[in-house]
């Protein structure tokens, strides 16, 4: 579109930005991660991940992020399928429905969940009214998963919805015409055609779920520590930047793995019908 010279000029601000605020900090993090307090090269801090507390937190983080991602996927598919079928009637209402949760500050909405789920929260008050025993909901892995799903579901729904609405209706009619039931049409046609959308949704849910510390702090009550909480503590309480950075680098491995998966199913490569 632009001549080469103009293109380079237009690119410069971003390159400076990326260099200063993405690349340089990344080098710092890696540098702190592989050195000790004396500034000598050391993998000891990295090795800390194998210690009980850290390893458990990592395991729990990966497990809860995976569960949240799967739950989002299972919720988003039927939702998007129904929405694309009605799409023609009221597209704006639907897109609002997706975007609206994003308008609310996620800290506020997570705190709202806290008051709903806690020991004397709304749900337990309702249980008492019905003379049912109290439920222990807050400070459980379930509460954290709920918080993650609530916060990150729109990021799954959006790419999936876009991917689904790109499928021409006549493609689904063709499948039906060739004898496929609704279920077979989903497995053999809809699912394969929406893999790019699902993969970008998975990335957009899994990475923030893996690294979050706000949701686990508020709904885990400081008892359930995710790797994000431990990294936060290393920086804000222990003041041990080396350990914090080493753990961050390890977390990055998972993110890179996830991104490799995404590039194999690059949504930009998705052909229009």
């Amino acid at each position, binding site marked *: 579109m632009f001549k080469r010279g103009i293109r380079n000029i237009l690119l410069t601000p971003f390159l400076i930005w990326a260099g200063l605020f993405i690349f340089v900090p990344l080098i710092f993090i890696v540098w702190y991660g592989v050195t000790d307090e004396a500034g000598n090269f050391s993998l000891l801090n990295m090795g800390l991940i194998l210690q009980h507390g850290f390893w458990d937190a990592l395991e729990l983080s990966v497990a809860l992020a995976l569960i949240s991602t799967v739950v989002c996927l299972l919720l988003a598919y039927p939702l998007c399928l129904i929405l694309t079928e009605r799409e023609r009637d009221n597209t704006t209402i639907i897109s609002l429905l997706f975007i609206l949760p994003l308008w609310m500050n996620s800290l506020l909405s997570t705190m709202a969940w806290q008051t709903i789920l806690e020991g004397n929260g709304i749900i337990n008050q309702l249980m008492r009214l019905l003379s049912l025993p109290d439920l222990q909901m807050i400070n459980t892995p379930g509460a954290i998963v709920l918080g993650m799903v609530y916060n990150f579901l729109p990021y799954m729904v959006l790419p999936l919805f876009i991917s689904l609405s790109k499928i*021409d209706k*006549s*493609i689904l*009619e*063709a*499948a*039906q*015409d*060739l*004898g*496929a*039931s609704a279920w*077979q049409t989903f497995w*053999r*046609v809809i699912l*394969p*055609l929406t893999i790019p959308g699902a993969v970008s949704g998975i990335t957009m849910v899994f990475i923030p779920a893996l690294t979050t510390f706000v949701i686990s702090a508020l709904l885990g009550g400081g008892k359930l520590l995710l790797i994000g909480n431990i990294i936060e503590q290393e920086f804000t309480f222990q003041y041990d930047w080396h350990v914090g950075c080493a753990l961050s680098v390890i977390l990055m491995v998972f993110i890179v793995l996830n991104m490799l998966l995404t590039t194999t199913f690059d949504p930009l490569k998705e*052909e229009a*019908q």
Partner: protein
Amino acid sequence: MKRELIRLENVAKSFGNLLVLDEIDLTIYESEFITLLGPSGCGKTTMLRIIGGFEMPDTGRVIFDGKDITNLPPNRRPINTVFQKYSLFSHMNVEENISFGPKIAGKSADYIRDKVKYALKLVNLDGYEKNDVTRLSGGQQQRIAIARAVVNEPKVLLLDEPLSALDLKLRRNMRRELVRINKETGITFIFVTHDQEEALSMSDRVVVMNQGYIQQVGTPENVYNEPENAFVADFIGDSNIIDGVMVRDKVVRIFGREYPCVDVGFPEECPVDVQIRPEDIKLAAPQEGAFNGVVTRVVFWGMSYDIDVEADGFEWLVQSTTGRTVGEQVSLHVAPENIQIMSKPQSEDEEVAQDV
């Protein structure tokens, strides 16, 4: 001889307030090539979708082979469709596309391999099994769509304007191919088009539709030579349609002159529409023919000329292999057997159509 396969009984369909089909009765026979022809919005595609099961009629029934299939979903009808936009599965190669139906039906791998091969041969694309469908040309994609439908050995193949996206030369070619496939497989073809040339050149029978009603059903020769009303006459080929009065059997009055014709059975002094095909009019020297006029326009088409002649205040369209010059005095002559008498339209729907 001709066995009935599909029967539509008093089918009607509306979308909201819009009536798209009404009082549709039609019988379709085994192995025939039948075309639903009409302008856009005439209801032909809706009729096809009702036969395919993609739309439910508001009233009426669809009978298939003696069984009522009105409420049967598409996946349970022994009918396959070739869609206008091909609608191939872009995530599958040619072979996977074609074997989609047989796989769903639970056929064996050997059977499927043979069938795919046969279907590709039928559409002249042998050896294309492993090709990526998105890389094929429009014509090739259309052939794959046909192969994908035919491989299921349906009793009926529905074709929804399948040639409209192809260029002229390819379209001509595909017309011949489709007729060949119809004869070779014995599958009943129900073909939807707005192109009268397509309908006339391919079909065993043509169903002319307009405004949601069937206007005429007949062989191509039948609807061309003996249109039942002015819409059919005007939509299929070019026509001169003149207001006339049937004086008595075999005599019609046009422009105040009694003229011999071959039609009988109309009441005396009955107003009628008179249709005369432009190629049936002979130009002669002034006073020799029935109507005197003057040439107002001449257009050369290669094989013939379109000549407009003004006579008695009416603009006649004449087709001739010899040209004339504008301003020339001529007279028009029509053989009695080339005058087609049609009843005046009874409903507004037929009347409106004359503007098309």
